[in-house]
């Protein structure tokens, strides 16, 4: 299942809404879309929203780490938003939460408009 990833940019915040199962097969298109949007908007903050991610393995960790490095080069910030329990467990196992802050928001819809 390919994630039909969407994004939206508002002021200097770029939100990327990842969807479906994030594995080695689907990470590449998600990563490419992410980087395309990053290069287009050069945001000060990238929000990776995981609320619609139904499965993730270490490929998702690779995706987050890659974007984190890219944002550091741009002197910008990254946030992980709304990971489901399975996803959050894996992020903590990989100690990603030590590098990137994980937040839970109730306004996903309003960011998306």
């Amino acid at each position, binding site marked *: 299942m390919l994630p039909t990833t969407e994004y939206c940019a508002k002021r200097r915040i770029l939100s990327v809404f990842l969807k479906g199962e994030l594995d080695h*097969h689907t990470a590449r298109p998600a990563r490419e879309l992410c980087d395309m949007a990053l290069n287009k908007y050069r945001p000060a903050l990238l929000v990776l929203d995981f609320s619609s991610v139904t499965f993730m393995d*270490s490929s998702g960790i690779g995706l987050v780490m890659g974007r984190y490095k890219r944002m550091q080069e741009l002197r910008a910030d990254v946030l992980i938003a709304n990971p489901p329990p399975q996803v959050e467990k894996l992020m903590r*196992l*990989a100690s990603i939460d030590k590098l990137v802050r994980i937040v839970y928001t109730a306004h996903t819809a309003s960011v998306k408009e």
Partner: protein
Amino acid sequence: MKNVKNHLKLIFPSLSENEALARLAVSGFLAGSGADVSVIAELKTAVSEGVTNAIVHGYRNSFGLVTLEIKLLSSGRVRIFIKDKGAGIEDIEKAMEPLFTTAPEEERAGLGFAIMQSFCDKLKVKSTPHKGTTVTMEKYIYKRNEP
């Protein structure tokens, strides 16, 4: 075979879209077993890592078949084998180190074995260079009565 309650063998080509198929096979196989939901989620993740390893590393410069075998044992454990006939691993200890990867260009995190290890009770890796790799995992599938 008398201590094997159920058994599944799935053979598929090393295409990345089959990673999802392998996960579906695990959850389908365990659906009627009464396994704990979080155990199924962990096994799906571990199998996803193992099958991805076979496809990305085992058959890195080639194409071949991946075998996924699942056995439900009467002890309440599930034993999973992931087998490839690909490149094999030169140094298993090194390969199992967290963050070690031979495919950084693909943004592989190097966490496959670490995840399999922490999501399973037992993990065994057998490999011969140029012959292939077999990963064996074992996990108790019911809720444990621990605090």
